[in-house]
């Protein structure tokens, strides 16, 4: 079992949330099970996606792996080092970004000073830290901003310098928590390509990334774990997950008005229906068979149709099938 650079076994974590005034006795305690018996093994050189809606427990897991949060039970190891008992060795083995990261570097120092500083904190010699910094600034296309204070950077540049910070130690394991969250689409695309082509293919890093963008997980990951309510629902390659519903087709209808619940249920041939405000996704084995009945039903109810598409299932459909719900507050992005 030691050959997994990222190894998680039976990790659980509860948080106690208190509500109400700090000074009143009637404080209500609510226990949130952030992670429930999570198992995860990431192979060497693999990009592993952790996919789930906000609040599913993704960030908690990353925080445990990065030694920021201590689990209640279970074992987690990075590069063979226990994150609780050998936390410093573990920290020397990974680079990580947590959250947006706009504020994760020192604004009063230049980009270069920041990176050299963090390199030194990983025990790099001054020269190595400098070389690595120059290299990373070039990769992030920040060379001309190297000697400018981070406070003068744009939001995107701040994200870039934080990303470079995670790479400064050239650690074998990389943990990225929502790496493209809040980035502009073109940089998000560049970053994904960089993760895939440079970090994985050239440098053979082992990478765990969390995301709630289905497309990102689909595009980058060799394997994906679907996480919901603190539990791993399924782990497989994106293709395998999609294969579970491969014989299906999805009819996607957008309408001008909100749709009532359960109004198509009596049509034979429909496998599953997911209704969300003004759009509806109908899973079926053969769209041509049921299309007419669906349209007739909509006409009968006086519902105006904006668009109709027939698609092959995506990772999102697999997620919906497995968890019974979609990804909350997901955003479409290029």
């Amino acid at each position, binding site marked *: 079992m030691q050959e997994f650079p990222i190894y998680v076994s039976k990790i659980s974590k509860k948080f106690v949330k208190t509500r109400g005034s700090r000074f009143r006795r009637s404080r209500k305690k609510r226990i949130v099970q952030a992670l429930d018996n999570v198992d995860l093994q990431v192979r060497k050189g693999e990009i592993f996606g952790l996919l789930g809606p906000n609040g599913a427990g993704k960030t908690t897991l990353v925080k445990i792996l990065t030694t920021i949060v201590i689990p209640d039970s279970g074992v987690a190891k990075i590069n063979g080092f226990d994150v609780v008992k050998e936390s410093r060795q573990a920290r020397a083995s990974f680079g990580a970004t947590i959250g947006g990261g706009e504020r994760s570097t020192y604004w009063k120092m230049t980009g270069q000073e920041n990176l050299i500083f963090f390199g030194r904190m990983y025990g*790099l010699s001054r020269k190595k830290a400098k070389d690595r910094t120059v290299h990373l600034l070039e990769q992030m296309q920040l060379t001309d901003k190297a000697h400018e204070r981070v406070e003068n950077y744009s939001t995107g540049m701040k994200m870039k310098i934080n990303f470079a910070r995670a790479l400064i130690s050239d650690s074998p394991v990389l943990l990225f928590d929502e790496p493209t969250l809040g980035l502009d689409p073109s940089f998000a695309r560049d970053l994904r390509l960089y993760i895939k082509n440079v970090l994985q293919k050239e440098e053979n890093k082992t990478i765990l990334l969390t995301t709630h963008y289905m497309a990102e997980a689909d595009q980058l990951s060799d394997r994906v774990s679907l996480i919901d309510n603190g539990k791993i629902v399924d782990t497989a390659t994106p293709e395998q997950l999609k294969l579970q519903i491969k014989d299906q087709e999805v009819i996607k209808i957008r309408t001008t008005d909100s749709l009532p619940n359960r109004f198509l249920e009596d049509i034979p041939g429909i496998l599953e229906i997911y209704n969300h405000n003004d759009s509806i996704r109908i899973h079926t084995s053969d769209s041509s068979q049921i299309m007419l009945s669906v349209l007739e039903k909509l006409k009968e109810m006086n519902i105006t149709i904006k668009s109709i598409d027939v698609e092959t299932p995506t990772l999102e459909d697999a997620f919906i099938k497995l968890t019974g719900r979609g990804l909350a507050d997901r955003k479409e992005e290029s």
Partner: protein
Amino acid sequence: MKKTINSSVAIYPPHSLSRIMFEVNCAWELMIKYWRIRLSYPLTFLYFVSEPLIFLLPVIIYGQALVGGRESEVLANYAATSDVILFLTFGSASMAILTRIYWMGAMGIRREEWTGTLVSIYLTPASRFSIILGNTLFGLTMSVLAFFLQVGGVFFLYGLDINLLNFLPMITILFFATVSLLGFSLIISGLVLAMKQAWKFVLFMDGFMNLLAPAFFPLAVLPVILKPLAFISPITWGVEGFREGVLQGFSNYWFEILGYIVILDFIWLILGILVFNYFEFHTRKKGALGHY
């Protein structure tokens, strides 16, 4: 024997000596970083360096107003000098250095929480202890600079009769007192990390310690009920020893004070490490690290 899977540029040093070197390096880098950041606020920097002198002037004027000059026979009964200005200058100077050392150490983690960079630092393999040491070193270097300005200022304005050789016993005291102050910083850091409201309490304690520190009066005039409290404060002996060193050199009393400080070093440092580790663990358990 652990096998590492991938060779990496950054590897946590396997031997204890190289580990210590690594931590010292980290503390040093942190100190440099604080200097960089501090220098980017020129006004604040200027103030920090000049404040001890500005603070001292009213104290001296008040002292002179009381005795009507700079010589006090009453003071000579308690201390090794009758010169009010000499007495106050080194009392105040030592207190400024010592309080800043522990204050900077204690503020370090809090400040990283404010700027949002605490988590970034926590992700590196550097020990949390080194983070506080780095801050302490910053406090030390900055307050030494302020010290020269302060003593230099008084020398320029009033003139001071001191033996330069006595700087050696003074520095010795400073070094040993810093160790207990580091322990003190660890306790405060731990407290504030776990309970943000503890900040007010820390300010209160700081005020209380300053009250007991014999910066503006000799330890002997402190009322009996306050003495036990003063005796366990590292500031008290630091100030007393610092001034004794300047006035008398390696005297018997100086060695006695040094003895107290060494004992306090052990107590405060061990207590500091225990308290900090406990609260830091507790905070990570709660998942509240980096919240503010």
